[in-house]
């Protein structure tokens, strides 16, 4: 639960905004997964097995702060000749979804620099947050001189084609995750209801060996080993046995950069809609599936203007914040609840908006046009405008002037009339947004399009002051 505290100094803001639970969770995962799994993998690397790793900047920061031993273990892995580091955004963020790609590129570059500083290597293959991918992402990454990019082997994109080959998208080679074989480990491994339970390394290696195609990309959450599936499930034995079982069947383990140089693409994929590896939908609905998430996404995007402190703003773009706000049913819903430490998605959303509102209002002081910044800022749930009718709240909430205009296009007419009769709009605009001039000019307007026209004009003028 976050509540703003003006006494907090700027240098302490990070701890004020982000839960101390982070440390506790990190240490739990270090203990259950990072440490034991990496030990096993190091052993296997020495024996000739190869695999690649992708680590966000946030993870390395947390390890640096709370678990230096693990960091040096990862360092050992990263510098091993049989591994490769994959590029991603420093903040594991949703920045690639912004229409303007410059922030995304900046974060990719930050990550690349970090890999270089920490491990002395620059990634040449890229994977976007949760495999979020479309033509634009591919083109952006191509222009940043990566030689290949990972994404999910989504059926509706591939059609009859197999994920076990290299394709190109916007002239960059694409490596597709083999969804079925990856999820056999990631989701089904310890599921007693699965007809192939218990899965052994022997069986699994057989499946891989009997698959057709050039390459099979198995890409897993690292936490699969020890955290999603605890040690008791036998997941570590599986991990330890798999490399040998694979080589027994002449399956070679190859690094992604070798793959793109050894195999030629067999075709092109064209991805207009955004895909990802999340849930069954394989799209962005895990982060932008509901209105809460979309509200938060637009708000963090417009917070760029207020972001005097870029790192703090970027921490707020991490995809997990949005994941916690998801509302889904079925098995995916269970996954979401398991991974979220918030009791309610709504709670997660409100906390996020409070933090964002506090972040913006602190930065206003340092901005040139404070008046415009004040009127356009994102608000906390307590300050936001809640649309109602005589019997109560009708479920629409405006967290800033942009969203207020957007909602005015479709909030039921009877609610508009109700608020205008009571003078609620004018009062909110005067008291919270501190723009008496705008309040004056909407006074008495009852036609929806008159209201939206006036607000649109004012909003655009104010934004032009901030650019």
């Amino acid at each position: 639960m976050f509540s703003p505290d003006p006494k907090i100094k700027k240098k302490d803001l990070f701890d004020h905004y982000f839960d101390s639970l982070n440390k506790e969770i990190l240490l739990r995962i270090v203990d259950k997964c990072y440490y034991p799994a990496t030990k096993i993998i190091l052993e296997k690397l020495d024996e000739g097995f190869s695999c690649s790793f992708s680590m966000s900047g946030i993870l390395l920061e947390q390890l640096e702060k709370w678990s230096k031993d693990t960091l040096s273990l990862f360092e050992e892995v990263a510098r091993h000749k049989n591994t490769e580091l994959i590029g991603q955004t420093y903040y594991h963020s949703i920045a690639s979804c912004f229409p303007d790609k410059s922030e995304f590129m900046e974060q990719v570059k930050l990550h690349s620099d970090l890999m270089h500083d920490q491990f002395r290597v620059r990634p040449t293959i890229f994977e976007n947050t949760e495999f979020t991918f479309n033509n634009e992402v591919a083109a952006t990454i191509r222009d940043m001189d990566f030689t290949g990019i990972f994404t999910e082997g989504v059926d509706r994109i591939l059609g009859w084609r197999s994920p076990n080959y290299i394709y190109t998208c916007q002239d960059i080679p694409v490596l597709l995750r083999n969804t079925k074989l990856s999820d056999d480990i990631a989701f089904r491994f310890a599921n007693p209801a699965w007809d192939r339970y218990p899965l052994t390394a022997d069986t699994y290696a057989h499946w891989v060996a009997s698959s057709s195609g050039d390459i099979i990309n198995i890409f897993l959450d690292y936490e699969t080993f020890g955290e999603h599936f605890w040690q008791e499930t036998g997941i570590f034995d599986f991990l330890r046995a798999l490399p040998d079982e694979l080589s027994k069947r002449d399956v070679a383990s190859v690094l992604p950069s070798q793959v793109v140089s050894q195999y030629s693409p067999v075709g092109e994929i064209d991805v207009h809609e955004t895909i990802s590896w999340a849930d069954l939908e394989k799209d962005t609905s895990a982060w932008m599936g509901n209105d809460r998430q979309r509200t938060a996404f637009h708000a963090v995007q417009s917070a760029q203007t207020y972001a005097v402190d870029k790192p703090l703003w970027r921490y707020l773009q991490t995809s997990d914040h949005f994941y916690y706000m998801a509302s889904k049913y079925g098995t995916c819903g269970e996954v979401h609840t398991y991974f979220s430490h918030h009791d309610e998605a709504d709670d997660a959303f409100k906390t996020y908006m409070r933090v964002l509102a506090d972040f913006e209002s602190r930065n206003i002081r340092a901005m040139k046009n404070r008046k415009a910044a004040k009127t356009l800022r994102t608000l906390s749930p307590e300050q936001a405008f809640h649309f109602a009718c005589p019997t109560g709240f009708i479920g629409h909430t405006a967290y800033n002037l942009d969203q207020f205009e957007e909602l005015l296009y479709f909030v039921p007419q009877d609610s508009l009339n109700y608020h205008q009769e009571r003078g609620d709009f004018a009062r909110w605009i005067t008291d919270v947004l501190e723009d008496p001039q705008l309040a004056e000019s909407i006074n008495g307007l009852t036609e929806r399009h008159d209201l939206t026209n006036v607000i649109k004009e004012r909003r655009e003028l104010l934004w032009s002051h901030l650019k």
Partner: protein
Amino acid sequence: MESLKIAFFCWESMYAERVGGLARAATHLAETLVDQGHEVHFFTRGNIPDQTIKGVNYHYCQPSGNNIVEYCDSMSASMVDQFRRYDTPHRFDFLHFHDWHPVQALHYLQDRNTILSFHSTEYGRNGNQFGDWWEFKEISGKEWYGGLIAKRVTAVSATLKKEVMQLYNVPDEKCDVVPNGVVPREFRVAINPGEVKKSYNIHPYAPLILFIGRLVYQKGPDLLIEAIRKVCRHRWDAQVVVAGGGDMRQFLQERAKDLPVNFVGYISDSEYVRLLNAADIVVIPSRNEPFGLVLLEAWSAEKGVVASNVGGLSENIDAFENGIKVDVNPESLAWGITMMMDEPENAGAMGKRGRTKVDRLFLWNPIVRGLTETYARTVA
């Protein structure tokens, strides 16, 4: 497709004279066409100066007449006058007429690229029966004539298309299905169901069944009441809200005296959104439904739907995937409601999948892309 200049002829629109669901559908079609880069002039009724809203140019007229048919002919004549004024210097590419009201205008302009959209038929509005009074015959006649002279015809569902083909001998290859759309954000809101239920004196945890619609025979509210009698034998906690007014209200209230049914009468749009989001199950027991817009609204709000297996409902619901389809009788309806109520998790999942279907098929953007294909076929 290159940018088209399109004229809409419709007797109602969202920002002036508004009668029913047609205003919403026609206005959204027009606005989405503009979004997709086309120019739209919307000829309609209204006692206000012409205006441009969201890029759509509205031209208003004030018809008069001694009866509905004369009134609509007068409206058509004014629309055509207005139309001619905007037909220069660039001529309109397509003329799109909605329902029977502007068919007289279609008659004057029949040499152009014309499209007539059926949102319903007089036969359907009359409860799937023929009438013997003169308005019925006159209006049906206009529907037949419009279907005959228009270059292309659209209907909101395959069911309505079949009806139009059978009633008015419109050939299959001339008629396309262009469904109704919905703006899901209007109906899915963040609201606490318990709080809304309490405002109706319903316990926050009691399962709430919602009926919305006119209380007329076609909509089957009587089937619902009889079904609830059966449901209550199994579930003492069920609560029903019946929203909407109509001829049958008195009769229904009498029948439901000893049942947990709340008749709340006509409600505002805001109140509808509140109730829709508070409901656990939405029931659509219609005897006939050319499309069934409530289905899209319930799906938008991610609600489990129990609906009659008729018309557009039958077409659009995938049984047990995104809703439960039942026969048109109280026994079957009671079975469906009980089934949905006993597995709330499953009801939620079905509602969610309904929403997915809405996002795939019933947003205005893809629908309007389909509509422009119909336009293209008009000249092919």
